[in-house]
């Protein structure tokens, strides 16, 4: 089992092309932990902004009457991938992992697979 900071560091080192990672509480929009990022990628701003993305999708699903859950959300930019993975554990409801990847270096299938593994090992 890994704590927040260890899990985020692992995401940064083991996932090829990682630019930044954050664990975010989407009931408040605040990050529980961040790794990487920097001047071009402010992870605090990303945490608050992507909270709105997650909330909008949750609300849309409710309105559509879909009795389902979100596993992950992929946003494809010109030069980056942004992956949002909602956590499922009993103690980690209401949290998501956010990962920004360099599109030219990342392998999307591998990144999703790795992120799933990191979630399984994460203990909040």
């Amino acid at each position, binding site marked *: 089992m890994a704590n927040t900071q260890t899990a985020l560091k692992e995401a940064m080192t083991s996932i090829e092309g990682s630019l930044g990672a954050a664990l*975010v509480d989407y009931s*408040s*929009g605040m990050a529980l932990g961040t790794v990487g990022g920097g001047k071009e990628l402010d992870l*605090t701003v990303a945490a*608050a902004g992507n*909270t*709105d993305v997650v909330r909008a999708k949750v609300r849309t699903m409710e309105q559509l009457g879909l009795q389902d859950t979100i596993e992950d959300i992929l946003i494809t930019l010109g030069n980056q991938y942004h992956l949002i993975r909602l956590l499922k554990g009993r103690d980690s409801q209401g949290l998501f992992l956010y990962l920004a990847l360099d599109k030219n270096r990342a392998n999307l299938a591998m990144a999703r697979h790795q992120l799933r593994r990191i979630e399984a090992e994460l203990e909040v």
Partner: protein
Amino acid sequence: MRLTLRQRTERKWLLAAEPEVLEELRRLRARVTHVTGALAATSDGVVLAHDTATVEPEGVAALTAAALGVAQSLAGATGRGAFRELLVRGANGYVATYAAGSTAVLTVLAGDRTNVGRLHMEARRSGARLADLMGVALSRAEQP
């Protein structure tokens, strides 16, 4: 409270900045969902501008000044330095106060579904803008 002539002049100029301050408060309300009101006040509880429908601004400004006094003492006593912000969460939402320079504060009311991360981001930015507006207003007061 008796004010010195200087304080009175400063207050007059601060109050003269009301349209710009109000515009900033409206901008903040528009940028963060679930924000139900915002007001700018001097640190001693005088309302400079408000955009609130549900609460009485004078009362909130006075309570803000009281809470600010305690918050400043608490921050000082525990070595946290100058006051930056104060967040209160009730069962039905949030009341947050942000420093706007050393003379004024910004108090924001928000519902419990608000994105606090975004609220912090936007309100800190607004606080800084209000501080600039206060700075301009006070420099006018300095001029003879």
